[in-house]
């Protein structure tokens, strides 16, 4: 059998061969047919046969097919005649599994094999959204930040370069919020002065940008009028020169008015309005963003379909430009629904990369939510049988770090955080996975022998 076939030819041959042999035979029960003296189990052919007819999936199944072919050709007594077709990975020679195990033979040399890596290319691209505007663009920010632009999964720079690493915003509030002790201690000196607070976030804690939450506007708290509340925004815009995000109080009735006013006073600065949701007047917020050239945060409650719906409303009904939408699909803390948040975001990101233009926007995460987990702030476990939880000053920041790290792997582009150590560690993680940290330890195997 000197002639070499391509895989395709071989499949064709077998297809013809099978059809001839199987035709007229009903496949039911434990049927076997005799073929040149050897028994062939029809059930072994059936899956191959149905697979052959699914020829469209052929490439994906190429390796699988090779396995079948090898077994089948052996069963039929046909010498294995194929060479791999160029697009399919080369089949490895069947290991001599059948060799009796008793005869242990240690080979003299390593069997050389080449690792042929699998590459993934997506047709889509995540939109690039710029936050902040410099003087040249009619604003007063010293720099801008760009989110998005990926053509691959997060940090998969071996598939495609990642043009922008995730950005980190630190939360600032316009009145004293409820904060875990481990967080509060870092802001004690500035909690009554949002402008100073913002400065500290940028200068001391390295925030890329600042989120100002106008929670005092909540009718159940101070009910500060919108026009009054946005004065704080003006102060913050004066105090720091980074891009700014503005949030309301979460009150569905009041927020549209507050955010509209914020959009007006920050005209030209390209702030992000946080946020528009399906159960409020999203149209008013989106219109304000459009009118004053800002970005709108499209926030849904962990539901990919609702996220699609809201994005589509913003795009189609309000005609918000594609470069002015960021999504918040909701962040749940480590241990408190993080799996839902992670998978929801990962699905959204993969859909966007696969070409769903309702979902290919940068993603934002309210990572500060991690502090809602009792493991982050409680002095010790309320469960008596638990191993003691250890110092909470150490538990809290790592809870925020791991919540953020996990979601960064799902594709989050913008993190809203609070604990300075968590901010610093996550930045290091992003820089490392983004290829911006050089160096490595000399011998990564040294841990095997260390005597400490």
């Amino acid at each position, binding site marked *: 059998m000197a002639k070499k076939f391509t895989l395709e030819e071989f499949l064709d041959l077998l297809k013809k061969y099978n059809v001839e042999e199987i035709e007229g035979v009903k*496949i039911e029960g434990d049927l*076997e047919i005799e073929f040149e003296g050897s*028994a062939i189990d029809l059930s*072994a052919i059936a*899956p191959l046969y*149905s697979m052959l007819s699914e020829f469209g999936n052929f490439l994906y199944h190429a*390796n699988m097919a090779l396995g079948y072919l090898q077994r089948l050709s052996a069963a039929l007594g046909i010498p294995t005649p194929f060479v791999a077709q160029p697009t399919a*990975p080369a089949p*490895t020679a069947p290991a001599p599994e059948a060799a009796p*195990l008793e005869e*242990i*033979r*240690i*080979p003299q040399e390593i*069997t050389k*094999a*080449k*690792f*042929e890596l*699998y590459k993934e290319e997506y047709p889509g691209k995540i939109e690039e959204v710029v936050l902040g505007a410099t003087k040249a663009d009619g604003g007063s920010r010293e720099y801008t930040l760009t989110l998005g632009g990926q053509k691959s999964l997060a*940090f998969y720079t*071996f598939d495609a370069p990642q043009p922008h690493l995730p950005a980190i915003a630190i939360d600032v509030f316009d009145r004293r919020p409820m904060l875990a002790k481990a967080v509060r201690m870092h802001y004690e000196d500035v909690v009554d002065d949002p402008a100073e607070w913002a400065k500290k976030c940028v200068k001391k804690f390295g925030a890329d940008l600042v989120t100002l939450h106008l929670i005092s506007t909540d009718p159940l708290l101070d009910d500060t009028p919108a026009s009054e509340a946005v004065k704080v925004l003006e102060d913050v815009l004066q105090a720091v020169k980074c891009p700014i995000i503005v949030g309301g109080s979460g009150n569905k009735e009041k927020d549209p008015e507050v955010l509209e006013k914020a959009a007006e006073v920050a005209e030209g600065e390209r702030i992000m309005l946080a946020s528009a949701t399906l159960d409020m007047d999203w149209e008013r917020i989106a219109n304000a963003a459009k009118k004053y050239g800002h970005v709108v945060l499209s926030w849904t409650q962990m539901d990919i379909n609702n996220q699609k719906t809201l994005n589509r409303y913003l795009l189609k009904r309000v005609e918000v430009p594609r470069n002015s939408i960021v999504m918040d699909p*909701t962040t*749940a803390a*480590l*241990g408190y*629904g*993080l*799996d839902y948040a*992670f*998978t929801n975001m*990962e*699905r959204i990101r993969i859909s966007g990369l696969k070409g769903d233009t309702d979902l290919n926007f940068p993603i934002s995460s309210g990572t500060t939510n991690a502090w809602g987990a*009792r*493991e982050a702030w409680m002095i010790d476990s*309320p469960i*008596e049988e638990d*191993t003691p939880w*250890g*110092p909470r000053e*150490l*538990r809290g920041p*790592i809870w925020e*770090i*791991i919540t953020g*790290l*996990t979601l960064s792997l799902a594709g989050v582009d913008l993190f809203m955080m609070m604990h300075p150590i968590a901010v610093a560690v996550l930045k290091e*993680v992003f820089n*490392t*996975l983004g290829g911006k940290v*050089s*160096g*490595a*330890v000399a*011998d*990564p195997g040294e*841990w*095997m022998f*260390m*005597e400490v």
Partner: protein
Amino acid sequence: MKVKSPLEVYNYLPRTNCGECGFDTCMSFAAHVLDRSVSVLDCKPLVEDAQKDAKVKKKLDELLELTAPEIAEVVVGVGDSAVKIGGEEVLHRHELTFFNPTAFFYDVWDTMEDKAIEERCDRLVSYRKFYVGNFLTLDGFAVRCTSGDPKRYREVVKKVASYGKPLILVALDPECMKAALEEIAEQRPLMYAATEGNWKEFLKLALDYKVPVTIRAKDLDMLKSLAVTFKQAGVKDIVLDPVTEPLGEGLKGTFERVIQLRRTAIAGQDKDVAYPIMVTPIAAWLIDGDEVSKAYWEAVIASMFIVKYGDIMIFRSLDQHVVMPTITLRFNIYTDPRTPVQVEPGLKPINDPSPDDPVFITTNFALTYYTVESDLTSGGIKGWLLVLNTEGLGVEVSVAGGQFTASKVKELIEETKIEEKVNHKYLVIPGLAARLQGAIEDETGWNVLVGPMDSGRIKGWLEKNWPPK
């Protein structure tokens, strides 16, 4: 697995619809084989026939191969404490689910004082963290040979093995490894590690002692070559370690190698690298810095690879700021996304309550429910816990999303007949549902008290607020 449709499995089954497996039809059984909720071996008639008939046996073996997971499964240890690793089918958990949670092993070394070894082992085996109705625990020990002395290593391995957890034997020297295997091979430890330097001796040990082996190489061509060599020689239980580098470009390279290995195995269908992956967060302790920084970085490395394809890990830190976040993340990532984590709605009496005791309400999201239930139970609080069907959503999300409403609370009160069981009309709602207070009062006619934001504080809250004035 290789088969993609139930029909392909069905063709191998007896097709008698005998129902012994618990499903009405063989087709239904076949569908469950496909989603991995049952194994082919759960078809008793098929297994029994295979014992009698060589042809059936051949068929069964073929079916087992066709339904084998994409990534090989490897068992470390024996008996109840054994851990199974690998067995993955997909690259993203929403495509099916991830199987066999990352196994956590913690290091012990043989030049430690005996007393220190005992303390560390005690600490590991007694570790417990309550979560969603269960206690999470740690899996095993990685015993490192730092003495270079086979006798001492054997002694320490024996001591650590007596704690009943699975072991990873960390030694590059074949003599030391052999000494340990002589002692505990039948407990199925995982060898760590065969390398380009020692592979011949380690291959022989793996075959002689029939134990799983880790192959370690940073170069993926070499890693694959060694895996092929071992497989051809008859070793089935292989774990791949593409070398964890703890920082900088090294860590980025590790991230890339781990992902490439898994993706090439699953999407690229390369069976020669379709094995469980070992990651060693303990390498974080090679970085300069203080203890907390190293511990944090260890948690960071571990978390990265709990999300991305690490099947088994060796750790250093047993401190809670490393263990608690990683063990929780492991649970989250390996939770089956196909089954919503819900409990039955209804009424749950806590600690044998009387008609005077308070009535609480929470959601049927398993995590919320078990948290509240365990806080009440372990806090010795007597009370009646109403569990509202919020479609498996937590309090905050269901209040915002409209699954936690006053009218649903009213229905639940009626269905459970709680009014007949207590002699008051006070309902304690979660702090996170505070805004429903008025609506629930209007709808039900009960007095609604707003409880604390976290159920861990119910005890203190009751001291001030119960009985109501």
